């Protein structure tokens, strides 16, 4: 099993390199000119050229890339072209909010998705199941930003229950305040994954219920509930770990939208702002970091799966 983990880790290295090249090139080839950010009306062409030279924007592109990569490996991600603060520091500031939101949402959607999917399968084709099926269709089809708007309209504007923006009320440092701010973003970020997981658990439970071991257990005197919640559950739940890896991309892209709408001070919101201000170093760093989250998440779910599933353990 250690070999499997090492192998999987080695696989991620070319991916990381490729991602850094791809994102670097994409941003480098973009038409917006970052020098614009430094130009004031009084500056002449020589001033502009000097700034361009200083920023290293005149070097050949592979030199720029290698310089950037070296710096990245040293932990120096450069400075924001807009506010001139170190990129790494900005990301460090933002990362906890994003990771916090993502992991809360992941745990929340796993719990709800599994329970709902299981109950739905246990009551296949009954009213509960039909309602769940319909709701999960809605869950995968609803535009998350619109869901957010509707929640804000209902819970913030009309009922005035929850704050619609930010992570904390200024001056207030209570956990309850944080929770209140986090409820809507978590819901919005989770809705799609809940639907996906519930659908997945439902169909895998239904197919597990047709397995021979179920009738064997029934014949050995197990009750339907025992079979469902003990024997079938474990079989149906294992692949969810893989689903977890699969749902990461939607989680990451969801974070960009959700954080922007709710003014959640995370990396996603930073990324969208960076795009609007043509802030290359920041965009590159965020591309790298969000890819990193994806790759590590996938790695983690693969490794976890091989630890949990006895059949894979055996193969290695």
């Amino acid at each position, binding site marked *: 099993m250690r070999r499997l983990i090492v192998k999987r880790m080695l696989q991620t290295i070319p991916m990381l390199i490729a991602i850094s090249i791809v994102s670097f090139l994409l941003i480098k080839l973009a038409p917006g000119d970052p020098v614009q950010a430094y130009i004031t009306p009084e500056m002449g062409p020589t001033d502009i050229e000097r700034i361009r030279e200083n920023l290293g924007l005149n070097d050949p592109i592979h030199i720029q890339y290698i310089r950037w990569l070296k710096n990245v490996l040293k932990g120096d991600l450069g400075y924001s072209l807009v506010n001139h603060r170190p990129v790494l520091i900005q990301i460090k500031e933002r990362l906890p909010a994003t990771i916090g939101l993502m992991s809360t949402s992941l745990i929340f959607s796993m719990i709800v998705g599994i329970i709902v999917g299981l109950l739905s399968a246990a009551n296949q084709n009954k009213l509960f199941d039909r309602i769940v099926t319909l709701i999960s269709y809605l869950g995968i089809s609803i535009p998350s930003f619109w869901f957010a708007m509707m929640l804000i309209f209902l819970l913030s504007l009309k009922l005035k229950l929850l704050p619609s923006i930010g992570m904390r009320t200024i001056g207030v440092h209570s956990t309850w305040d944080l929770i209140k701010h986090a409820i809507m973003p978590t819901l919005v970020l989770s809705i799609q994954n809940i639907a996906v997981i519930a659908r997945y658990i439902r169909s895998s439970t239904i197919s597990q219920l047709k397995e021979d071991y179920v*009738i*064997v257990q029934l*014949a*050995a*005197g197990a*009750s339907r509930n025992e079979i469902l919640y003990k024997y079938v559950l*474990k079989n149906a739940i294992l692949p969810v770990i893989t689903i977890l890896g699969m749902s990461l991309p939607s989680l990451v892209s969801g974070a960009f939208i959700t954080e922007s709408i709710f003014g959640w001070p995370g990396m996603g919101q930073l990324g969208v702002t960076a795009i609007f201000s043509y802030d290359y170093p920041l965009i590159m760093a965020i591309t790298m970091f969000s890819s990193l989250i994806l790759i590590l998440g996938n790695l983690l779910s693969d490794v976890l799966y091989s630890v949990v599933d*006895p*059949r894979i353990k055996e193969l290695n």
Partner: protein
Amino acid sequence: MKDSLLEVKDLEVTFFNRNGKVRAVRGINFDVKKGEILGIVGESGSGKTVTNLSIMGLLKGTGKVTKGQIIYKGENLLNKSEKEMLKIRGNDIAMIFQDPMTSLNPVFTVGNQITDVIMRHQKLSRKEAKKKTIEMLKMVGIPSAEERYNNYPHEFSGGMRQRAIIAMALSCKPDLLIADEPTTALDVTIQAQILELLKELKEKLNTSIILITHDLGVVANICSRVVVMYGGMIMEEGSVEDIFYTPLHPYTKGLLQSLPKTGGKMKERLIPIKGNPPNLANEIKGCPFADRCPYTMDICREKQPKYYYDGENHRGMCWLLDKSINGKGENHEE
């Protein structure tokens, strides 16, 4: 039938589909005596598995017992609540299935699955149950049972798995074991071992066994009595000797002719039974075998035959046995 452990009386099982109903079992009677191995033989679709699932109260989907009684130790199982049946299944009546590769849950250890069954029915601590599990594993011939306890099913070979499943089924010393094609999915050499094991365990634990199979060869090996089913009905019932040496029903004869004989001449041809089993969704007026029978008469398609007895315990359901119809019983006079 004083010494009967189980009596099935006039059992009918019907499946209700969108398109109508399928009468899978059409009124059958048989009994299982204490300590015997009863073979139920038939092709797939003959109703043999459905019959046994009804005994367990495990009919799936739209299937329902529409008539009859299943008397186990003097009580009708069909009147029992699901809660009472939970106590009977696995404890009084156990069942093993065809495919040992899929019969065990892949993500629990073999030992755990057996221990669970023991703890479900007996007031034992986990430790005692585990001890008993290991005992059982030893009894069914699994070497180094203590280590094997913690193995997952995929670490067992097919034959080992079937042994483990037998251990699980017998772990609570049931009075009746229903074995549904227990050897079909196994290699021939392992088949013989498993049959031998079943025979041995029957002696040791005094368990009655219903052995469901499509293979008369398996029956010859270990059964004392045989029920031959076709189209949801019992075509013939008798001792193994009756069935093999003096079969009454053309279907039984057909089955025997399609069986390779170990001692027979090499040139002897196997004669398959032509045609396919009847579609049970259709109403069958006469004998279900009429369409495939080489001796079909007009009456066979119109009226269902009665049972004709050759001795007290050997009966067949065929018009050919009725002297008043054509004056000649095929092979046997009553």
